[in-house]
């Protein structure tokens, strides 16, 4: 399938991370255009493009920007989420390493739209190389007058602070990230107030994903209608899919959001290797509910996947062939969520560990008949009761793995397991 490449258009070039290459391919022309626009017009353009946040929640980006209080004298912060912790997701890393100036240019435009003069980028602690490359790009941009005082002679000031995380998944949750950025334990904050009203350091703040930022210059340069036209009615553009697991060609694939999961796996990634059969696919990072092999004719946009009972999430596509034990997979996922729960809210803190213990017992052959229903009931009772979406993310796999592959779990439970 051939389609327009936006995010990956320069990936094949030599040194695409440098300012020189970025400029040769039309970089930093959008920011000049944006600086000539009214801030509200930028936001309007982004709204019309149907760009939805590409970090995981899929919230319409322009709408989010419009939540910043108008005419407020408070400093406003733009925070870029480069924590990329969702298992099965590795696309922001590619952008930071191969197209950092697109992210910086996107930040400049977004900052102009929300009247922010200070941006932060929170980079996952393990991402050493992306941090090095991105930091070098920031230095280059400062050197070229693209950051700092009076950007490109526009009179607009904008600084970027590069901040490294320390290895907690929860710090990718937008308010957990803000707490961490403020120097506190990375605990998500209760809402209200929402970050647009009271975010980083108590000031109005917009948190956007790396890929979302990288889309902005293209929308400004080529117009909202063009971007919207690449996708579906409710979501514009292409996006980066991180495809991993049992496919012939795993990796980052750019495709329109309207691509089907089947096409992604078989056309873009060469199908299932070694003659094996497809068993299950997680379409949007580990927090998304699993799909069975007969559910892959779904379009990968936010709304279609929601209708299919799962979510687009971070577009981390994890493909499992028929060698995979789903109970094992659930145990691994449950261990992850038990390990990464921040421990703030009681339902999440207590039940992620509990569910891990039950799932571990099941794969160890010591399961009890009641365990499966207990996991399902605990997951359903805890869902929607916490400060952030972490637990709802954990519930995705807990419920879908068991409901869709119950036979496999039951086969592991000894016949004399307690009734």
């Amino acid at each position, binding site marked *: 399938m051939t389609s327009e490449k936006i995010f990956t258009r320069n990936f094949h070039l030599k040194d695409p991370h440098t300012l020189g290459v970025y400029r040769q391919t039309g970089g930093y022309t959008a920011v000049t255009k944006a600086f000539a626009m009214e801030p509200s017009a930028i936001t309007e353009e982004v709204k019309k493009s149907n760009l939805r946040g590409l970090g995981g929640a899929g919230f319409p980006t322009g709408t989010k920007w419009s939540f910043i209080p108008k005419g407020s004298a408070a400093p406003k912060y733009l925070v870029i989420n480069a924590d990329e912790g969702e298992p099965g997701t590795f696309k922001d890393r590619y952008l930071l390493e191969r197209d950092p100036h697109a992210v910086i240019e996107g930040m400049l435009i977004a900052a102009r739209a929300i009247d922010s003069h200070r941006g932060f980028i929170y980079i996952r602690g393990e991402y050493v190389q992306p941090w090095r490359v991105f930091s070098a790009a920031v230095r280059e941009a400062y050197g070229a007058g693209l950051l700092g005082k009076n950007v490109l002679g526009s009179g607009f000031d904008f600084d970027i602070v590069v901040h490294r995380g320390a290895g907690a998944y929860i710090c990718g949750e937008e308010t957990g990230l803000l707490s961490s950025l403020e120097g506190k334990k990375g605990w998500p904050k*209760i809402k209200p107030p929402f970050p647009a009203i009271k975010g980083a350091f108590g000031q109005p703040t917009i948190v956007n994903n790396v890929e979302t930022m990288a889309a902005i210059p293209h929308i400004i340069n080529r117009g909202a209608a063009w971007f919207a036209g690449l996708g579906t009615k409710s979501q514009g553009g292409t996006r980066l899919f991180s495809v991993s697991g049992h496919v012939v060609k795993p990796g980052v694939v750019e495709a329109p959001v309207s691509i089907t999961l089947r096409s992604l796996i078989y056309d873009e990634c060469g199908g299932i290797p070694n003659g094996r059969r497809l068993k299950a696919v997680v379409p949007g990072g580990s927090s998304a509910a699993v799909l069975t092999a007969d559910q892959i004719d779904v379009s990968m946009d936010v709304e279609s996947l929601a209708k299919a009972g799962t979510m687009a999430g971070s577009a981390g596509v994890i493909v499992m062939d028929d060698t995979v034990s789903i109970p094992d997979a659930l145990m691994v996922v449950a261990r992850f969520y038990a390990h990464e*729960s921040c421990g703030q809210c*009681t339902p999440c*803190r*207590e039940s992620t560990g509990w569910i891990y213990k039950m799932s571990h017992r099941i794969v160890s052959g010591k399961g009890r008949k009641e365990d499966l229903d207990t996991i399902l009931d605990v997951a359903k009772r805890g869902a*929607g009761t916490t400060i952030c979406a972490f637990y709802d993310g954990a519930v995705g796999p807990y419920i879908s793995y068991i409901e869709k592959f119950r036979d496999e779990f039951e086969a592991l439970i000894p016949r004399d397991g307690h009734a």
Partner: protein
Amino acid sequence: MPRLTIDGKEVEVPPGTNLIEAARLVGVEIPHYCYHPGLSIAGQCRLCMVDIDKVPRPQISCNMAAADGMVVHTQTERVLETRKSIMEFHLVNHPLDCPVCDQAGECWLQIYYMKHGLYDPRMTDEKVHKPKAVPLGPHVILDAERCILCSRCVRFCDEVTSTGELGIFHRGDHSEIGLFPGATLENKYSGNVIDICPVGALTDRDFRFQVRVWYLDTTRSVCPGCARGCNIEIHTNRHRTHHNRGRRVARIKPRFNADVNRWWICDDGRYGFSAIDDDSRLTTPLAREGDRLAETTWDAVLAALAQTLQRYRPEEIGILPSPQMSNEELFVLGQLAAHLGTVNVDFRVPPATPGNDDGLLIRGDKNPNSQGAALGGLVPGAGGLDGAGIIAGAAAGRVKLLWVFHHDLYQSAWAETDVHKALTAATLIFQGTNTNRTSAGATLVLPSAAYAECDGTFTNFEGRVQRFRQALDPLGEALPGWEILTRLGRALGLPDQLYQAERAEQVFTRLAASRPSFGGMTYRGLGDAGRMVGA
């Protein structure tokens, strides 16, 4: 002001009131752990969820401000099921060691499990193990397994004392409360974390293992530790003293007063009750026989005191009342001093080391009733000697009778040699609760009841008159101070009805009638929160 409906009851509340507080106003209790009205909102325990019309999912009521037209339901099936679920989560890793836990009987896990839980436990796996019996400081000990991580203690140390000793460490179900490296929980208010801990995680090192809470009686009182007059509860163990090292007072707890101490008290006040059951208590009247003080009867000691007082001219008598005394006791003493005609009266004995106000609760003046003594006029009359003058006069032989209440003058800022000279030269009468170096040199000793053993009022530094109530019988033959003095009035043959008073309240009624700034005050009218002088 927003007007909303909670469980069918309409209520109007000040803007910004959250739903927990709004519900309280209509008598609806929304269960919660992490919310505390004196701390910031954490929203962590997730127990206080309620349904709100037009909102799809239950919301936490601690972080939801009441809004006009809001319709709130706290008893929908969904809310009740959610509470049950949250209770199960709170207890999944809890050790359920109630039989050996000091919190049992006043534990909000027990209370809410019985009210909102009552599920059949499903947790059959090994629970998470965490540190137990960890001393956090001189007063507080932690059992991390019992902790529900509500973070009240952390927020208290961050927001109220600004000392920040505590944090929550680790993640997920291994999260635990702990001290930051190098820190010890020894701020002046550390005991409050025990009160606000809703479970048995933080317990009192002084109180634990001493007595079960259901054996305790509760009496409303006022802390006598400084001029603030923090409202307290005295928890006494009168019937099972073998459970409590023989102490009748088991513990002191703060009692809410919005205008005085809110929810808190300092550690000095909390642990300052040992004098009540101390071996140093004076329990019988004493009279000097040569080198020693011999036990005597009230009739004998009061007759001796009446004779002694009548033996001296007014200018030969010096009275040093104490700002530890109640308004009632001071009032009767003032009447007696007027009868005797002595103007050498001064309650102000400067302490050896002056205290400091800490800007939170603690006052530099370590007396509960300096304001009451000042308003009561227990100061030198026209031409009278002040405290230092009385001591100098006694040393010089001009003041021949010293009548001292509570003070250990040797512990004052006055020079020890001057004090010693005065006390040995003059005839010394001592009235107080505990022995001290001053009482040891007295001719007559009159044992008075401790504040926990009688009724009365103190006037705090702001002029708030507050009641304290009798929690215990006076130890031995000790009597309430006001009663010693009314009996003395009778021994002096004074006809005034004041000296026939049988209850402190009758004395207070006289006091209020005789002093315009106390006009209209009654014990009943003082209530639990007290009343300002002149208000």
